[in-house]
């Protein structure tokens, strides 16, 4: 808070120079000095005081009314000084809070870590990026014993910390399901009960659960109100929405889920995602599904992982490097 003598003389000299010559260089000096003051936590009312001191040293015969006017200005500046101090506290608090959240986000990463299954003849690409520090999107691979495996993609309605807390619940619930129960509709039915019982009525979770059965070249899937994925037909080079019906998790304790089935062929792809992908924005406008498919379509020749990376980078740029929702995109391509 205390103004150093060097500051006073610095300020006075620069001020004198400016009053005499009025060049841009003194003003550039003023700006540099100002930043140094801010860095040293000098509040704005001290600046006014510094100005008064410098003036009266430079011009001892300054008119009285001007002296008084400066005292008045100083009085006005006190509240700005208090606000400035509050700012500094707030900054510290904020950075503490953010590092707390960073730790939690890290824990979440450890917790939700999942391993992509290494299945012959299947190329898998995954990207999942939170909009804020913590993610409310979730994906998980579940290995079955017969070579089949499951993929869960989920999205908590909401973002940030509450969504992340909710998401960790899904993870534990998934873990506690008996591994034998691999049927998508049974998994959703079980999870629905857990969510309904444990989570606040205002929190909903959507999930798309797909089971891949290599022996039959088939997928089975069920959806709990989740954003529909797409089926890419390699022969016609067209996308088709994967239509499903199913209530979001957590609404009704005894929801039942339909199970669908589909055979997939060589070079076909299954595209799973959350609404953070399909509801990207350009300025104030939500993009259309066709635009999303167009973007994905540009990269169908790439390996699955490169493909999802490219699509992500495309939307990142389009949205000015600020996603408004968590973004998860998974591509499965049948190679044989």
């Amino acid at each position: 808070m205390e103004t150093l003598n060097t500051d006073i003389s610095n300020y006075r000299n620069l001020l004198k120079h400016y009053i005499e010559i009025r060049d841009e260089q003194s003003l550039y000096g003023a700006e540099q000095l100002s930043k140094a003051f801010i860095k040293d936590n000098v509040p704005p009312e001290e600046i006014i005081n510094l100005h008064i001191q410098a003036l009266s040293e430079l011009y001892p015969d300054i008119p009285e009314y001007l002296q008084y006017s400066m005292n008045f200005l100083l009085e006005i500046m006190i509240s700005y000084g208090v606000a400035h101090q509050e700012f500094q506290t707030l900054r510290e608090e904020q950075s503490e809070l953010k590092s707390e959240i960073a730790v939690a986000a890290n824990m979440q990463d450890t917790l939700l870590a999942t391993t992509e299954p290494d299945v012959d003849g299947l190329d898998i690409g995954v990207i999942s990026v939170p909009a804020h520090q913590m993610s409310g999107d979730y994906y998980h691979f579940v290995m079955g014993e017969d070579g089949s495996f499951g993929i869960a993609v989920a999205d908590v309605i909401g973002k940030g910390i509450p969504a992340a807390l909710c998401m960790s619940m899904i993870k534990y619930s998934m873990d506690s399901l008996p591994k034998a129960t691999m049927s998508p509709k049974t998994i959703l039915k079980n999870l629905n009960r857990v969510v309904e019982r444990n989570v606040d009525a205002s929190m909903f979770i959507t999930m798309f659960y797909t089971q891949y059965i290599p022996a039959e070249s088939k997928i089975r899937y069920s959806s709990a109100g989740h954003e529909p994925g797409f089926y890419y037909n390699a022969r016609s080079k067209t996308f088709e929405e994967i239509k499903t019906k199913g209530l979001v998790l957590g609404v009704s304790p005894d929801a039942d889920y339909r199970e669908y089935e589909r055979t997939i062929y060589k070079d076909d792809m299954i595209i799973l995602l959350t609404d953070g992908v399909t509801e990207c924005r350009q300025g104030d406008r939500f993009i259309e599904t066709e635009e999303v498919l167009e973007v994905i379509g540009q990269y169908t020749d790439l390996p699955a992982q490169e493909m999802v990376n490219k699509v992500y980078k495309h939307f990142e740029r389009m949205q000015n490097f600020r996603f408004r929702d968590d973004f998860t995109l998974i591509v499965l391509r049948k190679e044989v």
Partner: protein
Amino acid sequence: MDLQSCVTIEKEWDIVKARQLGRDIAREIGFGTVDQARIATAISELARNIYLYADNGQVCFEVADELDQKGIAVISLDTGPGIQNISQVMEDGYSTSGGLGAGLPGVKRLFDQFDIQSEEGKGTEIRVMKWLR
């Protein structure tokens, strides 16, 4: 410690009286213009709280003249409704007036020491201290 001088806060005008008395005492002790203005601003805040929320209250001043340091203590006393949740009132940004940096956290920032005691239904005592550097 000198004897206390007090200003009873009943009308808005008394806020000005308290500021004036506080500023005069601060000047006598040797506080510079900036600190005088800070002290006056804090007095306003304390006196205004009495004026707005308590029927009865006063703002008092003490001069601390110790061996190695001098300072001013401002004490605000009221028989108002008291503060239910002190931690909340001391939080930044709580002030319902919407102003930045106002309220009791602002008073705390303008002084070196801050003490508050409050009992619901009985009243509040705030004691702040600023030392001359």
